[in-house]
């Protein structure tokens, strides 16, 4: 390689064009550089995607050792599954609740932390800290706090209120899971919003203040439009992330009470690895895939319409 390259640069008029031209060498380098990633995508993403579609056409019970082609029967079973409306409903409630609560809290915190106050950096650190706490550790503590006789009800009782059994009552279980998840990760969106707020030119507020525009109106007419790209971006990340919630459900509620917190990923896990229905589990995986695809495309097209301006 080294000899070839000196030959290339130092001899002005080579008699024969060398095989390893710059373009060829670049092509080789490019392919070699991306080879590990591409081989990984092929093996661990594309092949499994094809396989999961293939599996979804089979009745496959690992324990009974059956693997029979059944065509679209799993999909018929899916449509007739009495649990499906509940599962999709739980997923929708979780995602919607998470996105709304997460984004509004993140925005509120970002606005608060965007002020020039002494010690604001300490607050920023503290609000961000749950992001780096191990997810299961965080969930376990909250599970402990939310027990019938746990810390939260203890505090409520001290105020004379008898709290519910948060994780075992249909009305509060889902709300609890959402709240636990929001406090864990809202710091990420908060930081993104903070960066966006700091990108809003100060002159705009100056001008608005001189014109006597009230604070709230400044926020609605200046801040919100200018940070709308970040709002859309964070909502995409948060929605897609919310569809993958698993550990929180597994640790806090195991999908209960009833199936009120059984989101799609948890249902997929149960059907596949607890009930050994690998074929039907694959069908549920395809459903999850379709939902993620549809949501992502919907949000990207929404981004074009709603967003006030784009950097590029």
């Amino acid at each position, binding site marked *: 390689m*080294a000899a070839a*390259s*000196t030959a290339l640069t130092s001899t002005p008029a080579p008699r024969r064009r060398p095989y390893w031209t710059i373009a060829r*060498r*670049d092509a080789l380098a*490019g392919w070699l*550089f*991306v080879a*590990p*990633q*591409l081989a*990984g*995508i092929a093996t*661990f*993403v594309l092949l*499994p*995607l094809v396989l999961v579609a293939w599996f979804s056409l089979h009745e496959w019970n690992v324990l009974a050792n059956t693997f029979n082609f059944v065509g679209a029967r799993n999909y018929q079973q899916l449509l007739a599954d009495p649990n499906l409306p509940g599962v999709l409903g739980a997923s929708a409630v979780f995602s919607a609740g998470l996105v709304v609560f997460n984004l509004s809290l993140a925005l509120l*915190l970002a606005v*608060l932390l965007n002020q020039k*106050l002494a010690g604001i950096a300490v*607050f920023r*650190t*503290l*609000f*961000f*800290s*749950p*992001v*780096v*706490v*191990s997810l*299961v*550790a965080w969930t*376990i*503590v909250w599970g402990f706090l939310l027990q019938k006789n746990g*810390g939260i009800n*203890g505090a409520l009782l001290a105020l004379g209120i008898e709290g519910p059994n948060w994780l075992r009552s249909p009305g509060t279980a889902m709300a609890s899971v959402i709240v636990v998840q929001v*406090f864990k990760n809202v710091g990420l969106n908060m*930081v*993104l919003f903070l*960066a966006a707020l700091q990108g809003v030119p100060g002159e705009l507020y100056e001008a608005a203040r001189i014109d006597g525009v009230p604070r709230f109106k400044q926020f609605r007419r200046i801040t919100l439009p200018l940070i709308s790209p970040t709002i859309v*971006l*964070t909502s995409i990340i948060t929605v*897609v992330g919310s*569809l*993958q919630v*698993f*550990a929180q459900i*597994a640790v806090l509620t195991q999908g209960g009470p009833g199936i009120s917190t059984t989101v799609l*990923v948890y249902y*997929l896990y149960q059907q*596949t*690895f607890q009930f050994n229905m*690998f074929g039907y589990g*694959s069908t549920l*995986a*395809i459903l999850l*895939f379709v939902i993620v*695809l549809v949501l*992502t495309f919907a949000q990207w097209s929404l981004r074009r319409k709603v967003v006030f301006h784009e950097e590029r």
Partner: protein
Amino acid sequence: MKNAESKRRAAPSFLAPPRRARRDAAGLGAISAARARLLIYGGMCVLLIPFVFPTWWMVTSSIKPASDIFAFPPQLLPTHTDWSTYAQVFKLQPFGQQYWNSAYIAALVTVGTMAVSSLAGYAFARVRFPGANALFMVVLLGLLIPAEVTIVPLFQLFRRLGMVNTHWPLILIPIFGAPSVFATFVMRQFFIALPVELEEAARVDGLGRFTIFRKIALPLARPALASVAIFTFLHSWNLYLEPIVFLSSAHMFTLPQALTHFTDAYGGPLWNVQLAAATLTALPVLIVFVVAQKQFVEGLAHTGLK
């Protein structure tokens, strides 16, 4: 702090005495500003409770004897301490081994992902090669496909290879599969924004692509590499679905999975032991975070600004 504040407020009146009306207005403004500031601090302290208190509760409850764990009224500070919970953590499960499992898997995944993603990200940003755009689209597919979609076939794949209940799937899938795609994307965005002149000069000098990458581009990419390292480490450290699917024996467990296994004979959680193990899991990362918070926050924020 309070003193400095009042001094600053007093200063103008001392330097520029008369003009009574204006001074009064300024004084009023200062009072209401101070009140507003107090309100903001108070509001933020209340808002902080759900962010900070769980960690406090985790640490303090982990040294409470089992009888005090649900005591009423709740003990913000343990009245009796019982450090034996920490001994229990190691007695009930091979917790040291599990700690090591999580640590070395996360370390390997982090280093591996940095290598794979910086190479691929550099090539997609800089090198002109046939099929680059199409291949990049293929890689981006990985962003669209949640790990949960492919968990069934991946389980079968590794079962065929005899790698179930080994750490291989937890190492190989994140380094080469979908989780590293995001890292590749971050690296590519960084290299695109990097000025190209230095590298072009090196090319004129006849340096090969790999040398340019290693000697010039990679050292400049430190901030991007740091953010890749941070989110990759946290992702691996927090992984839960994959370990419980692939691993079945206690000495192979990773930490998140081990935490949920501190149970009594009836399957009920041994809260204080579980919380002690959770504390051991969470505290080291928290401490690193407090020391290097700037890198953490900026690193994680970078990745969102795609």
